[in-house]
């Protein structure tokens, strides 16, 4: 422990206070969601601001879990998250590695990647491509088109370039070909990067919502975000300019109360939060990707 002067300690204390305040402000909405999701509808309706549930109930959760569609969508989402993240990692790392090698077309492909990073064609061309490749209504429509994120690719490439060239050269001298260099040297040294990007891709896959609605025509194939959104939107009465007919059609389906919406939000975010600590030890190193050599 270094010895600090009084002003330094004071400065530190103020910093701490400000940061704690900021943290509380950011945590409060989350806290509120947790509290409301465990409260009964009566309690929620009666109080203006609920800070602690009057009665802890699991009504909202049992409502959601009773839905077969929800359980199925969790299965679907876990599938595309795991498979999608793995697939993306394989594609991104191999392409990143390929682009570190001085070979024909390196700058050409880099240019293509950068181009897609900046410009996007929009909804209709994407839909047309997915349709023409026959991926409509398959899970692969959610995995293949988004397999490589240009930003991740560039950073991954930088990371690979940060691995000392001597290692590669000594491997070549020992008679390794490109594939072996990749698998035996680069990958084991890249665990931080892989963990970090694995998590990034997993989060994106977990949040898949619009793509699922657009490309998947069969409701049983939808992801958990779609199902949860349906539960929440049916309850959302803020669309004040909606026509009377629309209002009626919506309310005919007996909207679940706001408490269920809160439970839905929690279920949508918690799984990723749970996974995060397990990857954290790799992740902290992964943050310095591409910026430090060796």
């Amino acid at each position, binding site marked *: 422990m270094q010895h600090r002067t009084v002003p330094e300690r004071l400065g530190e204390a103020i910093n701490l206070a400000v940061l704690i305040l900021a943290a509380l402000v950011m945590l409060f909405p989350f806290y509120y969601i947790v509290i409301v999701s465990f409260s009964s509808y009566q309690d929620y309706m009666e109080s203006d601001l609920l800070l602690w549930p009057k009665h802890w109930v699991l009504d909202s959760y049992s409502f959601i879990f009773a839905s077969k569609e929800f359980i199925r969508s969790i299965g679907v989402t876990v599938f595309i998250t795991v498979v999608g993240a793995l697939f993306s990692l394989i594609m991104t790392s191999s392409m990143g590695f390929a682009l570190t090698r001085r070979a024909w077309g390196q700058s050409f492909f880099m240019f293509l990647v950068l181009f897609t990073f900046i410009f996007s064609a929009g*909804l209709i061309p994407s839909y047309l491509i997915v349709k023409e490749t026959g991926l409509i209504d398959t899970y692969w429509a959610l995995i293949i088109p988004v397999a490589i994120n240009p930003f991740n690719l560039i950073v991954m490439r930088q990371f690979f370039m940060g691995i000392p060239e001597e290692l590669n050269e000594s491997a070549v001298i020992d008679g390794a070909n490109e594939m072996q260099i990749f698998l035996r040297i680069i990958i084991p040294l890249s665990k931080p990067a892989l963990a970090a990007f694995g998590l990034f891709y997993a989060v*994106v896959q977990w949040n898949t919502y619009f793509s699922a*609605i657009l490309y998947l*025509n069969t409701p049983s194939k939808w992801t958990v975000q779609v199902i949860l*959104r349906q539960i929440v*939107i*049916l309850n959302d009465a803020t669309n004040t300019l909606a026509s*009377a007919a629309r209002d009626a059609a919506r309310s005919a*389906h007996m909207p679940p109360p706001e408490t269920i919406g809160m439970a839905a939000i929690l279920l949508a975010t918690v799984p990723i939060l749970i996974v995060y600590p397990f990857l954290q030890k790799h992740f*902290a190193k992964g943050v310095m990707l591409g910026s430090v050599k060796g």
Partner: protein
Amino acid sequence: MKLNKLGMLVVAVSLIVGVIGCSSGNKGSQSSSPAVTNSPSSAQPSESASTPAVPAKKITISAITGTWSSPIPDPNGEGVKMMNEKFNIDFKPQGVPYDEYESKLPVVMAAGDLPDIIGMENVDANFVKWARQGAFLPLNDYIGQYEAFKNIPQNVWDAVTVDGKIYAIPEYFPSKYGKKPIIRKDWLDNLGLSMPTNFEELKKVAIAFTKDDPDRNGKDDTLGLGLAKQIVYGLPMGAGYDNTWYYKDAQGQMLPGNLSEGFKQQISVLHDLYAAGAISKDWALTKTADARKDFFTGKAGIFFEQPYDISQSRFKGLKEANPGAELAVIPPFVQEDGQQGFLSLPGYYQVLSLNAGMKNDPDKINRILEIFNYFMTFIPPDQRTPDNPDFDWQRGGIGKGYEMEDNTAIDIEGAASMQPYMYLSIPYWAPADEDTDPAGAVQEPFTKAFVQSTVDMLKTTKFYLDPTNRIHSDVYYAKASELNKAVTDYQTRMIVGNSPLSDWDKMVDEYMKKGGKEVIDDVNKQLQASGISGEWK
């Protein structure tokens, strides 16, 4: 050392936020989707009067529709199998949640991936555009032979007609049963007041509700009127005070309601009520759901509700918390021109179009229309029992798709995929709104009483048909919502007192300058060309 860790943490957080932010960019949706209910149709009914024999050839019929159902019925469900068998088809429905339908349908249309039946929520700019581009089949020559379609009134056919051709079959929605003003009758009685018949009386009543402790609980916890942001629902106590094209200007041109003198009266009353504290001080930030909550928890004395498809639990909650509560609909005020009545709803909700590609296959066209006709054929409420074979079949069969409780058919929770009627969700076209017997669909007694008294009152009330529901003005579609938003914002400021009511003419001027003049001119041009004008029914 410490700084490095902190720096790392900040970078970590910003990276995560960046990724999550980017990933949520996927959600490019707007709410509200095109109309059209789910499920394709097909097959002819075999037992009911309007159905011919099952045809020999099995055809495939696909459909795409928006839906509010949650969960969406399974495209391979028992209901579909029943339809396939009855109508000798291979039915392929695709239901899309309405939330995203407005985003998905244009993409599917642009990609040329159109199914045979296309549903839309309402007739809007897209509908007109696609009709003119030839995506939909004109139906004028085909509809004459179907009995159920004969119940569709002319003003509703007008809504789905573009350039003289009918491009969709509309689905029934009662025109009378939109939101109506309701009031706590018990509070009126407690204070010795009578039902208000004009704005002056309404003001007095609302202020008395706020100040004179109408619920007699000794606490100052009541409000006169429940109001939500964007002036929902306001105080449209009659068609002449509502946002509908009713009045004409000096040149004989029809004008939008929210610029009229009648509407100005409404805004002026709202302003006075706000100043007197009869409306919540933060109404301009309140969501409709919260304003409704205020009424149903006994805090506000006046609000709006409809006697059709409502939440019984709300009414039940009100009665339980306030056993003396009584509700009544406030009859429309007599207008300066002597008329008295409410604004009618368009009379339809959701439409079904046929893909123009089948124009050389009249057999398929007719089979689809027969299916629509079958589902649309009105079954009176007292016949909606297992004894009526059509009803029983449509609902999936007694014990499988629905149960009978107290002589009312109640769908079995989770059995949507067993019910053929869930796929296209075509409501029966009732000859008159009262024939739908909304009170019969309600079990909870307090709600039931409210619905029945409202239906009775509205049976003899006059309704005004907004002429703009029956024409299509591209200028209107393009500009109306933005212009209306500006007007609403201006009027919100007037109510709150930030702008004086005398600014009304200024507001109208701005509206005209921002494109409102073109909208009014074009709408009037369309009205003249089609010979349609406002009507009382």
